[in-house]
C-alpha cells in the first residue's frame, strides 16, 4: 500500500546548488592552503639551502644607486648579475633600524679590509625615506655603495623579513652565507668572506 503513496523527495535544484557551492568552497580553501604552504616553503628556502651547505643562486635585481662607492656611481643603475665575478657582501638596512647603527661601522671596516682583494660591500636600503637613508650614510661616513629598494621587491626576493640581514655572495652569484641580525664584529663574517675571495 505504501508504494501507492506519492512522496516529494526528488533531489531539487537547491540541493544541487548547495552541493556545488560547498564543493567550490572546499576547492577555494584547499587552494588558499596550498598557496600558503608554497609561500612558507619559499619563505626560507635560501636560508635552508645555505644551512644545508648548498650555495643557492642569488636572486637578481636592478636598483638605483642611492650612494656611490667603488666603481658604482650615485644615481646610476646597479644590476647584481652584472657584478658576477665579484664577491659581494650584500647588506639590507634602514636608517631607523637601531641594530643597523651598530653594524654600519663594522661593514665599513670589512670593506676597507677586503676591497683591495676584490670584495664589494653593497648596502640595500629598504623601507626607508631617501633623505633619511642618505643622512644615515653621511652620519657614519660610509664609503661603500648602497642601492635603494623602494618597493621591497628585492627584499622579498631575498626572503628578508627584517633588517639588518646580510648575504655573502660568491663570484658565481651564489649565496655562500647569510646572517640574520646585525654583524657586530668583523670576525662574524671573516670566514665566509675568505671562502668566496
Amino acid at each position: 500500500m505504501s508504494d501507492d503513496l506519492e512522496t516529494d523527495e526528488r533531489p531539487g535544484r537547491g540541493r544541487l546548488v548547495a552541493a556545488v557551492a560547498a564543493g567550490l568552497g572546499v576547492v577555494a580553501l584547499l587552494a588558499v592552503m596550498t598557496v600558503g604552504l608554497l609561500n612558507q616553503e619559499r619563505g626560507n628556502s635560501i636560508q635552508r639551502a645555505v644551512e644545508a651547505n648548498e650555495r643557492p643562486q642569488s636572486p637578481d635585481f636592478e636598483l638605483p644607486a642611492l650612494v656611490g662607492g667603488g666603481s658604482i656611481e650615485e644615481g646610476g643603475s646597479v644590476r647584481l648579475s652584472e657584478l658576477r665575478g665579484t664577491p659581494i657582501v650584500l647588506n639590507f638596512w634602514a636608517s631607523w633600524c637601531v641594530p643597523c647603527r651598530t653594524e654600519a661601522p663594522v661593514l665599513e671596516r670589512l670593506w676597507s679590509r677586503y676591497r683591495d682583494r676584490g670584495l664589494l660591500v653593497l648596502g640595500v636600503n629598504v623601507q626607508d625615506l631617501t633623505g633619511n637613508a642618505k643622512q644615515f650614510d653621511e652620519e657614519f661616513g660610509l664609503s661603500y655603495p648602497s642601492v635603494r629598494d623602494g618597493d621591497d621587491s628585492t627584499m622579498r626576493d631575498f626572503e628578508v623579513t627584517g633588517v639588518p640581514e646580510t648575504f655573502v655572495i660568491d663570484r658565481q652569484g651564489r649565496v655562500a652565507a647569510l646572517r640574520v641580525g646585525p654583524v657586530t664584529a668583523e670576525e662574524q663574517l671573516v670566514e665566509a668572506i675568505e671562502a668566496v675571495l
Partner: protein
Amino acid sequence: MRWLLAFVAVLALALPASALAVTVDEVARDVKCPTCSTPLNVSEAPVALDMKEFIAERIAEGDSKQEIIDALVEEFGPSVLAVPPKEGFDLLAWLVPLVAVVVGLMLIPLLVLTWRRRSPSSEPIMGTTSPDELARLEDELRRRSEG
C-alpha cells in the same frame, strides 16, 4: 550671485591658514606603514614615525595632500597606498567584491524560488486521495483495529 562669491572669498580670507591646511592625520590615513602594513595614522613603527615627520615637513612647505601622497608613492611604490588605485591589476580589488555582491543578489531570488518549491504543499493530503484509495485505507484501518 556676485554677493555670494564675495562673501565666500571674504570668509576664506578670514580663516587662519592652519584651518585650510591638510593635517598629518588626514594624509596618514590614506597610506600604510611599509613595515607593518597598518594605516600610517595608527602605526607607531619607527619608519611610520619618520613618514609622519616627512608629511609634517611637506605640509609646512605648503604641499597639498595629493602632492605628499605622490611623494610617498615615489619613495615606497604604489603598495604604500591604503586603498589600491583604481587601475591595472589593482582594479580587481574594487571589481571582485562588486561582482560578488551582484552574484549574491542574483542568487537570492533563485534560492527563494527553490526553497518555496520544496516547502510542503498547503493543500490537504486527503484532497489528492482518490475514493478508491480512501476505501482501501479505511478497510486497512478497520482490519488493524479488529486485529
